[in-house]
């Protein structure tokens, strides 16, 4: 069979096809059709010739096969040092082989490559820091994902995710109306306790444009409320946008570069329309990576920068605490062993390693903060990055991957893990559910809302 009705090379473009694919529970039919899907070898080879240039070709060529990347990979370590989990092997046996065979690969090969690209790599980029030749295998895995996506060999959830971005410009079926209404609903819910709380919508020229993760609208609306409470308490001139509010990109995990561009352009359009002084995104790692770090390139911005200055939420929190816009009640500082999860996407891949520790110095009573080991840019992935969390087909592998983080946390002795990243937060929640080690986990926002001193004008009148 050349192409299936559900599993094919065409991206999801309409709400209807999205719903049809969603209706195929767990992708049963989808994966069945994938077994029959032909490889368009000409397309594969011509794409490689057009897009695989000197950087990746040199990486593949000069790899000394020294194996020094092995120990850098948490998936290698946690899978009993299986040689097939060595990063260099994973990329040489997939992308390397594809190029060697000039794209003449078959369905079985593509299944193997799909499993390697999504179940044996989270694109955490840690191996790139351990290779003497400066070979970043995570970057190449990302590139491989793009080739696989274009051939229809992509996990079901990510095909849907990329389709969501194409249809809704959000990772879930959340419309612009849903977003604004949820914000209004949250303002109503919380304004009694936090007087004057509201969400300015589409305000032009505000100091801050706040962008979010669609999951917050759908599953954790209180996160939106907490963001508003903190901006309000800090006296910020801020706004949300009724269009282009979604910062995340499952399309990036899927390797759907066109959808990545559509998504990030929707946010940049909002920036250009509202002309804020800066944009601040929610506590999400990959959203920051997609919109701030990689996004400018998808959008064709030659300076590699978004249209306005963009900050991760942790940068704003650190600034607000440093400048006294937010003041923590010393009595409410954290007085129990607490540790911090470094998100690969903004720590290793955007340098924000000191800023989260500065926040800890304000929030945690001295002596109670314990760093994981290794940490900062050398930290291990939470175990669920790069889309791994969301793929049912690879749930077993993902659960095994969580053990690394579980043991890192156990070694700190902390009972509370602060994870300012949606993906990490999910992975840590799942590892607690799976392995029951008796920890709690939290974003920064709910902790801050409980800890800060509120200005008089926000206090409810008795």
């Amino acid at each position: 069979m050349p192409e299936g009705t559900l599993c094919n090379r065409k991206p999801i473009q309409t709400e209807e096809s999205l719903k049809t694919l969603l209706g195929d529970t767990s992708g049963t039919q989808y994966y069945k059709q994938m077994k029959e899907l032909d490889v368009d070898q000409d397309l594969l080879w011509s794409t490689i010739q057009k897009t695989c240039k000197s950087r990746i070709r040199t990486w593949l060529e000069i790899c000394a096969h020294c194996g020094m990347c092995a120990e850098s990979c948490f998936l290698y370590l946690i899978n009993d040092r299986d040689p097939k989990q060595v990063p260099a092997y994973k990329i040489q046996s997939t992308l390397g082989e594809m190029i060697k065979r000039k794209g003449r690969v078959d369905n079985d090969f593509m299944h193997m490559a799909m499993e390697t690209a999504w179940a044996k790599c989270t694109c955490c980029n840690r191996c790139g820091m351990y290779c003497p030749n400066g070979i970043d295998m995570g970057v190449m895995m990302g590139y491989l994902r793009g080739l696989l996506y274009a051939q229809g060999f992509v996990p079901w959830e990510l095909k849907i995710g990329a389709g969501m971005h194409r249809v809704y410009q959000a990772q879930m079926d959340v419309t612009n109306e849903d977003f604004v209404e949820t914000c209004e609903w949250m303002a109503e819910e919380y304004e009694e306790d936090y007087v004057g709380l509201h969400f300015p919508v589409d305000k032009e020229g505000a100091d801050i444009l706040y962008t979010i993760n669609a999951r917050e609208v759908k599953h954790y609306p209180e996160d939106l409320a907490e963001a508003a409470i903190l901006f309000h308490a800090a006296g910020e001139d801020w706004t949300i946008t009724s269009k282009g509010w979604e910062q995340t990109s499952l399309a990036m995990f899927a390797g759907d570069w066109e959808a990545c561009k559509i998504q990030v352009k929707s946010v940049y359009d909002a920036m250009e329309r509202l002309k804020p002084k800066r944009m601040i995104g929610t506590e999400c790692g990959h959203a920051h990576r997609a919109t701030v770090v990689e996004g400018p390139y998808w959008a064709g911005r030659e300076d590699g920068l978004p249209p306005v200055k963009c900050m991760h939420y942790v940068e704003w929190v650190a600034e607000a605490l440093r400048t006294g816009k937010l003041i923590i009640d010393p009595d409410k500082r954290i007085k129990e062993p607490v540790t911090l999860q470094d998100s690969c996407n903004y720590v290793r891949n955007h340098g924000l390693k000191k800023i989260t520790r500065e926040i800890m110095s304000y929030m945690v009573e001295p002596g109670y903060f314990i760093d994981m080991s290794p940490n900062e840019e050398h930290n291990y992935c939470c175990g669920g990055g790069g889309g791994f969390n969301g793929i049912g087909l690879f749930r077993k592998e993902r659960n095994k991957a969580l053990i690394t983080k579980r043991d890192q946390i156990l070694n700190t002795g902390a009972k509370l893990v602060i994870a300012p990243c949606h993906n990490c937060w999910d992975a840590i929640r799942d590892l607690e559910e799976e392995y029951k080690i008796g920890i709690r986990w939290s974003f920064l926002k709910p902790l801050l809302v409980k800890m800060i001193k509120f200005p008089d004008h926000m206090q409810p009148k008795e």
Partner: protein
Amino acid sequence: MYEILTGPMIWLSLSVFVIGMIVRAILYVRGLNWQLDRVAYRAHPKAGMKGAARSIIYWLIPFGTSSWQKQPVMAVIFFVFHIGAVCVPLFLLAHNMILKNIFGLAFPITLNLCIADILSWAVVLCAIALILRRIALPEVRILTTTYDYFIIFLAVAPFVTGLFARYQVGEAPFWYTMHLLCGELFLILAPFTKLSHITLFFMSRAQLGMDFGIKRGGLKGANITW
């Protein structure tokens, strides 16, 4: 044979090596693409240069990176091997005399003969260690191909034959001829094989350094701890 190897073949092999390496470097840079690589190379030259320099320098310092520190045995083998492999051919007195004869100029520094001996033996021993490592460690074995052994052979053959010639084992002219042959083969094949890493190591390290220096945190003022 000997006349050809010490005359035109030296010219030819050195030319192929130098020109080949320059071409590889130029092709590498020309093949970089800001949008495909997702690194704004041109837009931030200062941050890019800084990132590139850090990325090269830290990796050239023994134990200068986490990776070297985590694998000290490999680090020692790596550095001893490469220091020998670079210094002996460049600064050996006999090599310099040949260069002076042919080109009329040579490097101002020459290696003390004793040091040259030690370094040459060290290169051979390290090569043996690298081969044993390839056989012994499963994570290296799975990556290893015949081509990897061929590259080690190409790199070490000039040293082995050079040592035979130096100790005048058997018939000296034979080993001199073999040494010249192996050395020239190395120079001629280097630009077309994995030995191109002599140049491309620097290019690749610089590229990743620019990536981190420009895109992945450098502009935030954060220096990556290699």
